[in-house]
């Protein structure tokens, strides 16, 4: 503790109320909003907390590790005079931390280069550089139709039992910039890092990611924060913020391209709801607090690129939609903040299609700036629009055929049905180890579009139609 810190520290003994994850402390002065606290139990245990509200001399504190064992007169509360911080350093790479930011892999302690407030500050919109560099994930449904770009936040909306973890791991493993000539390996592999934050997920799922990172050698470029299902839920509120503070340090001070995976944001939101309910706040939809949107935004908006900085933060938050319902507040509000979403479909998964990305409701808002001539290929935008339109029509026709039988379809609609069926099997379906280049993805697209007559392809500019129609058809 520095001398200055010593001066601002305040110790108190009097606790008035303890309820849920919260407690009210009385008889203390000079406490400020958002301040970090330490609660010393008679056992010698130290728990940490944060000031949520202060009125005159009563202070409402949220205790991260839960209030178990805290009584009115058996603990000492210390106010640290500063917000919650995290130690950062280049040596974080390759290490695992717990939900409090402490080393959790049995290794030596971290020698910090800096301590940073985990809440960060909002990025000035003027300082942002627009994300427009194509990231090739090697997955057709993403690269071809819902293109990911550096600095984007693109969540995966999944459901219980769907393979979102495998998809995220595949993205983390395969993601790379398409070498455009000038910038081949110059930025080097060490300029790339993964920050992984687990919130309330099972040991097995967390272990899957960590062993996957170890297996592929990605671990030495990864920083892992783990709060498991059995860990204190309130701790989850700090985990994504710690992860993003680390990511900001790596990206904007060490010039790295950082991919941040946050899983599972539904667990995070439930922790927020728990605190809100304990405070007896007026609930919004489904009991979530009215400020859920703002709160989620302070996490998601920490993705991006800054002018004059080499690094970038790309976010892939994962959330499970209760009952696969995308209008549930967590996916709904997430979708309003993030730049698109990848939605996994149970129906596709049950049909054996994997990764089961349902392209119709999926979207990447930043796609248009990251594709086209010089980035991917000139025809990319048109092909992608056409695939969407054709797939939607095929799906409609198929529904019709279910009711009326194939015979009721017009010849054109029959072609669309064939198109959409083969689309699922050839375009969406791909192996976990299959890393498709963007050219390959687009050519599969053309191969499928060539099932349809040329005049049906209205979304494609005539010159591209002449150049690419029927391309890749020999081979089927």
């Amino acid at each position, binding site marked *: 503790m520095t001398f200055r810190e010593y001066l601002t520290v305040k110790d108190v003994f009097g606790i008035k109320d303890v309820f849920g994850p919260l407690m009210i402390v009385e008889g203390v002065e*000079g*406490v*400020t*909003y*958002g*301040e970090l606290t330490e609660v010393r139990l008679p056992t010698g245990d130290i728990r940490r907390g944060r000031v949520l*509200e*202060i*009125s*005159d*001399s009563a202070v409402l504190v949220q205790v991260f590790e839960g209030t178990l064992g805290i009584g009115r007169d058996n603990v000492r509360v210390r106010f640290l005079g500063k*917000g919650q911080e995290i130690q950062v350093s280049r040596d974080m790479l390759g290490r695992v931390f717990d939900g409090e930011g402490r080393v959790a892999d049995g290794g030596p302690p971290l020698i910090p280069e800096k301590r940073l407030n985990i*809440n960060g*500050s*909002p*990025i*000035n*919109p*003027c*300082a*942002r*550089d627009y994300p427009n560099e194509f990231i090739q994930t090697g997955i057709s449904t993403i690269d071809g139709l819902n293109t990911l770009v550096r600095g*984007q936040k693109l969540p995966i909306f999944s459901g219980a039992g769907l393979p979102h973890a495998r998809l995220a791991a595949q993205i983390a493993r395969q993601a790379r910039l398409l070498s455009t000539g000038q910038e081949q390996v110059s930025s080097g592999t060490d300029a790339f890092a993964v920050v992984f934050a687990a919130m309330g997920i099972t040991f097995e799922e967390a272990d899957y990611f960590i062993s996957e990172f170890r297996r592929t050698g990605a671990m030495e470029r990864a920083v892992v924060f783990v709060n498991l299902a059995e860990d204190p839920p309130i701790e989850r509120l700090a985990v994504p913020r710690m992860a993003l503070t680390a990511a900001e340090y790596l990206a*904007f001070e060490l010039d790295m391209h950082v991919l941040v995976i946050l899983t599972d944001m539904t667990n995070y939101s439930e922790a927020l709801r728990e605190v809100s309910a304990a405070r007896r*706040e*007026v609930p*919004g939809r489904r009991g979530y607090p*009215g*400020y859920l*949107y*703002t709160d989620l*935004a*302070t996490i998601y*908006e920490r993705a*991006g690129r*800054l*002018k004059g*900085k080499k690094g970038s933060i790309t976010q892939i938050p994962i959330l499970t939609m209760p009952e696969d319902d995308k*209008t*549930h*507040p967590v996916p*709904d*509000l997430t979708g309003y903040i993030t730049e698109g*979403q990848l939605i996994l479909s149970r129906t596709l998964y049950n049909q054996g299609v994997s990764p089961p990305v349902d392209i*119709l*409701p999926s*979207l990447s*808002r930043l796609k*248009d700036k990251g594709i086209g001539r010089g980035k991917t290929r000139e025809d990319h935008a048109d092909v992608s*629009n056409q695939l*969407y339109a054709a797939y*939607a*029509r095929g799906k409609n026709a198929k529904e*019709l055929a279910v009711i*009326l039988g194939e015979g*009721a379809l017009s010849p054109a*609609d029959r072609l669309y049905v064939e198109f959409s069926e083969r689309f699922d099997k050839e375009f969406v379906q791909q192996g976990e180890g299959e890393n498709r280049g963007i050219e390959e993805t687009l050519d599969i697209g053309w191969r499928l579009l060539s099932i349809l007559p040329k*005049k049906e392809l*209205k979304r494609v500019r*005539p010159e591209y139609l002449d150049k690419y129609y029927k391309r890749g058809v020999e081979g089927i």
Partner: protein
Amino acid sequence: MTEGTTKSEGVITRVAGPLVVANGLAGTKIFDMVRVGLLRLLGEVIEIRGANYSIQVYEETEGIGPGQPVYPSGEPLSVELGPGLIGAIFDGIQRPLDVINARMGPYIVKGAGYPPLSRDKKWHFQPTAKEGDRVAPGDVLGTVRESPLVEHRVMVPLGVEGELTYIEEKEATLEEVIARIAGRGEPAGLPYEVTLLQRWPVRQPRPTHKKLPPDEPLVTGQRILDTLFPVVKGGTACVPGPFGSGKTVIQQQLAKWADADIIVYVGCGERGNEMADVLLSFPELKDPRSGRPLMERTVLVANTSNMPVAAREASIFTGITIAEYYRDMGYHVALMADSTSRWAEAMREISGRLEEMPGEEGFPPYLGSRLATFYERAGSILCLGSEGRKGTLSVIGSVSPPGGDLSEPVTQATLRVVKVFWSLDDRLASQRHFPAVNWLTSYSLYQPVVDEYAGKRIAAGWRENRREALRILQRESELEELVRLVGIEALSPEDRLIMEVARMIREDFLHQNAYHEVDTYTPMEKQYSLLEVVLRFYTQAQEALRRGIELDRLIDLPVREEIAKLRYIPVAQKEVFQRVVSQIDEGLSILEQRNRKQETGNREQG
């Protein structure tokens, strides 16, 4: 902000997120600005109960605590008005984000206090009034060339009237005196000194001479909007839709192409990258009328979702006050607010902290009236001042209903006050049909006004064509129901033709690619010609059917591909449209001849 010395300083007693309660602020009025705590964060008094003053703080309150001081300013939250607004980007309380970025780095740090408008920059003031003139509020004293597109008109402030004793052409900073008006200054008797800089409290609408009925469309270049659901200059519109349905793209398209003189774009609680997009692309994009960069007519107010929530609440008012200021100069101003739902949520959050009795879904009971006061600041007006200038302020607000459910309070309260409803449809968006405006549920109450205008200026058949297009689309949706039950084969050739033509209207007319260099903007004349061509095909084909030509032959006519390409043809190439029209006629007459031959052949055989 000048800080008054007469009011007493307060002491903080409570801090709950963005809400701070203080006492000892005697002399401070409701909606006054204050500086809060040792960090001197900007705040606004929103409630007074006895000695307790509730303050909403426009910055993150970490580090603020009881016992810290509150400094009153004695003034309500106001914006600075003057040259330098155009091309600038402000946060919700008009702090200059570009200056903050240049001086303090990429993050917005607390307590950053820079004046919204530069005090150093000199502007060339060109008087239009002369010494000895009697002037009244709203009269134009002179002009400043603010940007190549905007001539800034310096007006006599409200409450000032009298003889002009001094006025001079000069290079002036915002604070230099450019004119004096006799006898209206302080203390009484001294002349009033006019500078280029004026202030106006954001929560108070700027006065006008009188409101006028709107009479002119706000041309957006978006076919479904201008042709089917138009908005007028001085009108109000809302764009509700679930996420991913293209609200922001529509708002940005309007900001780019609407034929207003000034655009005020308020990014309220939305994405930082979207604002970055506007900031980076607007200086590059050209205004279709003047050929100048769009940024030269645009003011940006950006309070992204991660910026403090109370400033988000203020951002809408900041934006509309700036917009009114340019309207008062006699300009056509359009304000885009994206998204009003985030604004309403900010109100809800503050209301919750004040422990007010909640209305529907936790929103405060005054949600409806706040929305109404905002939209009612739009309108076509006769400006103050003796020359009878006319100005308009159009407001287009997007709404983000949770789960896309339009029955939620913000959408419903908005629909009660706005005149145009562009309903965005998830299903259309997932088929990548953009703009995903649903043609069956959207409406515009300005159709009669625009019909009359377009009937005179564009083509006499404007109204008929629009009605016909809507009728065909309506019929298509009925037929679709039928097809779902009995299959397409069961339809009569006439009905199948309707289905085909409806598809043409949807795909060749309503669908519009915002990222295609030509398709992104369609002038009204071309919109008319495009629809005219499709409808001509329809009437000709109907006629042909009656004469016994098979439907499939009509559907396979090569001219249909030509029609589909028309939207990509630049306006200048009018002859292409004429060629396609004659191709339709030719194609059909060839079919007819063949048909006749066949018939005569059959007859001869028989």
